[in-house]
């Protein structure tokens, strides 16, 4: 038995659209640094967050090439947070809603991301210390 909290999040926003995405990842970052066990159920547009084919780009307006721009990619955030959680004795378990993936064609996900269903969200939440849903508005 452990006293380490397990927290389940449901998130709906797609990448590069709202400020909620970065805020959500900030919450995950706090959890990862504390070594919590983090469960994420990505619903609807959020299933594109771990899409492995995201590509950084240069930005002529900024006057920087792709390397200098270091464009943020949510798939890299997920990978970094997974490492951070594990480094601190925790974990990050990311479940993509499978039907949401199919309708968007974003099947290619980074390693560690699993395909699931609303049943997984229910089970994860039931087994967690607490849960938080962050919907699209």
């Amino acid at each position, binding site marked *: 038995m452990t006293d380490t909290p397990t927290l389940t999040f449901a998130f709906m926003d797609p990448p590069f659209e709202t400020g909620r995405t970065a805020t959500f990842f900030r919450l995950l970052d706090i959890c990862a640094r504390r070594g919590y066990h983090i469960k994420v159920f990505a*619903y609807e547009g959020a299933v594109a967050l771990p899409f492995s084919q995201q590509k950084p780009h240069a930005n002529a307006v900024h006057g920087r090439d792709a390397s200098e721009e270091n464009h943020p990619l949510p798939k890299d955030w997920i990978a970094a947070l997974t490492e951070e959680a594990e480094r601190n004795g925790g974990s990050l378990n990311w479940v993509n809603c499978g039907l949401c993936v199919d309708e968007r064609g974003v099947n290619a996900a980074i390693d560690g991301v699993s395909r699931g*269903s*609303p*049943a997984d*969200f*229910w089970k994860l939440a039931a087994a967690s210390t607490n*849960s938080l*849903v962050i*919907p699209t508005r």
Partner: protein
Amino acid sequence: MKALQIVEAAYRGTIEEQDDTILWLSHAMKGVGADLTVALRGNAVNYAVKGQAAGGLTFGNWHQTQPPDIEQDLTSLMEKGIQVYVVEVDLRHRGIPTDKLVTGVGLLSFDDFVDLIEDSDRIWHW
């Protein structure tokens, strides 16, 4: 575990998804034994108005043959044993009379809403 699904964002992608995604999520979780209650608040109280018809969408030669049917989705939820409520004050603010509501949908005062929250193990506000 008892979970309260509070639905506030209304008509979010309902045409594309052919349903409300949170009502759909509730259906799917009920299928694995979830103990759920649904409370419609804000603009989502309009989901409980019977007789809505979202058909007829056409783009060029493309026709949507299966439009969303929120009334049926709510009725089906209730048939599965999920109680559906609307927050009464939100209904009143929008001028929606109670005789326009889908049969079986309950009215929730703010006091009742607080009780419902207190009785639930998880509160999911969408």
